[in-house]
C-alpha cells in the first residue's frame, strides 16, 4: 500500500498548479467564457507543450507513459481553477477509446493530434430520451458497403463547439437498451451530414446538440468490434467518471477553503461569522465530506485496472460519494457566503454551479447507487 506520488507526478502537479494560478485568474476565465470562442486555445497549446495532453498515452503511442493517477492529478488542478478546456472529452474519452479499442491505424491517425493539441474531440453519447443508459440509443448506424451510415440526435455534447472530431455511439443491431448491438465511431466533425447547435452551459462551458443525417463513414471509423461496444464504453466512461470526480475534488477543496476564509473576514454582530459554532460545525462537515470524497476518488482511480465488477463498484461508489459531497459543499458554501454567494461576481457561485452539473454527467447519484446495488 502506498499513497505517495512519484517525483514526476509532484512535478506535474506543481507545473499545472502554477499555470492555473498564473494564467487562469478569475477575470481571464470570465472573459474567455463570454468570448465568441468560449475557451482559450492558447491554454490548450500550452497544455500540449507541457506534455499534459500526452500524459496518459503510452510511449509507444507517442505519449509520456502516464496512467490514471496522472489523470487524477491533472483533473484535481483543473478543478481548483474551474478550467473549462476539454481534457476529459479529448484525452480521457477519445484517448481512452483509442487506447483500449483502437486499431494501430486509428491510433496512428489520431493520438498524435491529441498529444500535439491539434485535434480536439467531443464524446457524443447522451440522447434526449436515453437518460444515463449508454445502451438506450435511438441513433443508428447501418452497414453500407464497407462503411456505415449514421442517423440520430445526440444531446448536450460537452466541448463539441470546439471539437475537430466526434466520438459517437450508435446502434448497429439489436433493440433499444439491448447490451449487444452498440458500436462506437470516430469521425471528423465536418463529415457531410453532421450539423450542430451550439450553446453555453450553466457551468461556463460550451456544448452542442449534434444531428446526424445520413452521415457516411468508412469501415475505419468503427472503434472496436461492431455491436460489441458497450463494454468498451463502460470502461472508458468509468475512466471519465474517475477523472471528473478528481475535478470535483479540486473544486470542492477550493470552495471549502474560500468559505472558511470568508467566515474569517466577514464580520456580523461585531465578530467574524466563523466564530459561530453553528457555522464552524457545518464547515467541519464540508471538510469531512471532501476528505471522504477524495478517498473514494483514490479508490476509483486505483481500481480502474481491476476486474470489471471491482472497477464498476469502485467507480459507482465514487460517483455517489463525490456527488453527495459536491451537493453539500456547493450548497453550504453559498449559504455561508450569504447574499454574496448568489452573485455572479463572487467566485463561489461558479464553483457551486460546476459542482451541481457534475451530478448529471455519466450518471447521477441514484443511477450509480443502483449500479452498485446490482453488482453487490
Amino acid at each position, binding site marked *: 500500500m502506498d499513497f505517495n506520488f512519484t517525483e514526476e507526478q509532484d512535478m506535474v502537479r506543481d507545473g499545472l498548479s502554477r499555470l492555473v494560478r498564473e494564467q487562469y485568474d478569475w477575470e481571464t476565465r470570465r472573459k474567455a467564457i*463570454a468570448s465568441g470562442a468560449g475557451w482559450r486555445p492558447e491554454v490548450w497549446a500550452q497544455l500540449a507543450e507541457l506534455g499534459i495532453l500526452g500524459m496518459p498515452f503510452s510511449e509507444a503511442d507517442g505519449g509520456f507513459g502516464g496512467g490514471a493517477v496522472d489523470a487524477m492529478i491533472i483533473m484535481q488542478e483543473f478543478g481548483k481553477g474551474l478550467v473549462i478546456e476539454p481534457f476529459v472529452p479529448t484525452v480521457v474519452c477519445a484517448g481512452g477509446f483509442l487506447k483500449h479499442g483502437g486499431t494501430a491505424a486509428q491510433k496512428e491517425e489520431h493520438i498524435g493530434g491529441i498529444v500535439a493539441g491539434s485535434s480536439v474531440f467531443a464524446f457524443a453519447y*447522451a440522447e*434526449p*430520451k*436515453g*437518460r*444515463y*443508459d449508454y445502451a*438506450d440509443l435511438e441513433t443508428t448506424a447501418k452497414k453500407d458497403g464497407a462503411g456505415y451510415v449514421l442517423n440520430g440526435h445526440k*444531446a*448536450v455534447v*460537452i466541448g463539441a463547439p470546439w471539437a475537430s472530431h466526434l466520438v459517437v455511439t450508435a446502434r448497429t443491431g439489436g433493440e*433499444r*437498451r439491448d447490451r449487444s448491438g452498440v458500436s462506437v465511431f470516430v469521425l471528423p466533425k465536418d463529415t457531410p451530414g453532421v450539423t450542430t*447547435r451550439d*450553446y*453555453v*452551459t*450553466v*457551468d461556463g462551458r460550451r*456544448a452542442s*446538440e449534434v444531428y446526424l443525417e445520413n452521415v457516411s463513414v468508412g469501415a475505419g471509423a468503427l472503434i472496436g468490434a461492431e455491436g460489441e461496444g458497450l463494454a468498451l464504453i463502460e470502461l472508458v466512461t468509468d475512466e471519465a467518471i474517475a477523472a471528473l470526480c478528481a475535478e470535483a475534488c479540486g473544486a470542492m477543496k477550493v470552495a471549502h477553503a474560500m468559505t472558511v476564509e470568508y467566515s474569517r473576514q466577514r*464580520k*456580523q*454582530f*461585531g465578530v467574524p*461569522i466563523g466564530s*459561530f459554532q*453553528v*457555522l464552524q460545525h457545518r464547515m467541519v462537515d464540508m471538510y469531512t465530506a471532501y476528505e471522504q470524497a477524495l478517498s473514494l476518488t483514490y479508490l476509483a482511480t486505483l481500481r480502474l485496472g481491476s476486474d470489471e465488477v471491482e472497477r464498476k463498484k469502485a467507480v459507482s461508489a465514487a460517483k455517489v460519494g463525490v456527488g453527495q459531497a459536491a*451537493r453539500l459543499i456547493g*450548497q453550504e458554501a*453559498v*449559504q455561508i457566503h*450569504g*447574499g454574496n*454567494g*448568489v*452573485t*455572479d*461576481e463572487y467566485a463561489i*457561485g*461558479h464553483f*457551486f*454551479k460546476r459542482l*451541481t*452539473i457534475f*451530478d*448529471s454527467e455519466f450518471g*447521477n447519484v*441514484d443511477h450509480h*447507487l*443502483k449500479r452498485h446495488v446490482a453488482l453487490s
Partner: protein
Amino acid sequence: MNLEFTPEEQAFREEVRSFIAENYPKHLADFGMREDMSREDFLAWHKILGKKGWSVPAWPVEYGGTGWTPTQRYIWSEENARASTVMPLPFGVSMVGPVIYTFGNAEQKAKHLPGIVSGDVWWCQGYSEPGAGSDLASLKTTAVRDGDHYVINGQKTWTTLAQHADWGFFLCRTDPTAKAQEGISFILVDMKTPGVEVKPIKLLDGGYEVNETWLTDVRVPVENLVGVENKGWTYAKFLLAHERSGIAGVARSKRGIEKLREIAANETLDGAPLIKDFDFAKKVSQLEIDLAALEITELRTLAGEQAGKGPGPESSILKIKGTEIQQRLTELTLEAVGTYSAPYMGGVSNDNGSNEHPVGPDYAQHAAATYFNMRKTSIYGGSNEIQRNIITKMILGL
C-alpha cells in the same frame, strides 16, 4: 377539530376559481423566470385585483382589505397557485402597507395606501447593507435632520426589483449615539429624489433581480418619517414577522410538486416513466409529506391569527421549512431533467440576444437557473440561521 371546508368556503373557492379563470391575463400563464418580466407584467394581475377589491386581502377593510377569514385567504392563495398567477409583489402589500396602516399618520395613509391597493405604485425595501445583513441593526445609513428635511447618506443592498420602484422604505440611523437597535428610523423615500442611484447586481443564474441602492445627500421631507423617530426598529421587526409568514409559499410548492410529477412522468428511465422509479418517487413523496406538515402548521398559525394573535416567533418555522421545501423542489426538478439541466436557459444565451427555441424539453429550460436562484431563499428575509436563533431565544428561552 376537523379539516373540512364548509359549504360556504367551498362556494367561495368556486367563486375565486372562476374569477381567476375569466380574468387572469392569458399571456402571463405559467411564467418561467421573473427576470424575463416587464414592469407591466408584474403589475398586470395586481391592477385587475385592485379594481376588483382583492389586491390586499389581509388588510383591515377600511384600508381596502376584503374581510376574508384566514381560511378564505388560504383558499385564495391556493387557487392562485393552482393557476400559477403572478401575484402582487410583497413590498407594498405585505411589508410597507401594514407598517403604514399600523404606525403611520392619517396623511401617510391617505397618500400611500391607495397606490398600493391599486398597484399603481411600486415599492422597494431598503434594509440590508453591505456590512449589515444578518446583523441588520448594525446598519450605517444615516438620516440627519436639516430644517424640514432629513438628509440621507449610505448604501443599501439586495434591494429587490428596485429598478422598477417608485418609492422605497428605508431604515436609517437618526441617532448615532444610541445603542444599535435604538436610534433607527423608518423613512419613506421617493426613488426619483436626486441622489438615489440604483445599480443592478448580476446573480449566479444570470438574472438581475436585486440591486445596490446608493443614497447621496438625498433630501427627504420630515413628513416621510413613519411613526416615531428612533423607533424604526420596532416597525422593522413587525414587518419582518409579516414577511416571514408569507414566505412559506405552501400553495406554490404544492403546485410545484404537481409539476415535478408531470416532468417525472415525461422523463424516462429504463424505458419507463421516471416517476415509476421507486428511488425517485420516494423522494417526491418525502417532499410531499414535509409539505403536508408545513401546511397544517401554517393553518394552525392562521387559526391563531384569527383568534387575535399576530404572527409570532413561530412564523420562523414557516420560513425555515417553507424555504427548505422550495429549495428541495427545485433540486428534484433539476434531477428529473437530467442531461438537459446543463444548457444555459435552454441554450438561449442572454448575451448574444438569441431567441431561438430552447434545446431539450420546455420544462428543462429554467430548471438549473431556478435551482441556483432559489438558494437565496434560505438567505433572505432573515437567514435560516437567524430564524433558528429567534426560535432559540423567543420560544426555547435559551
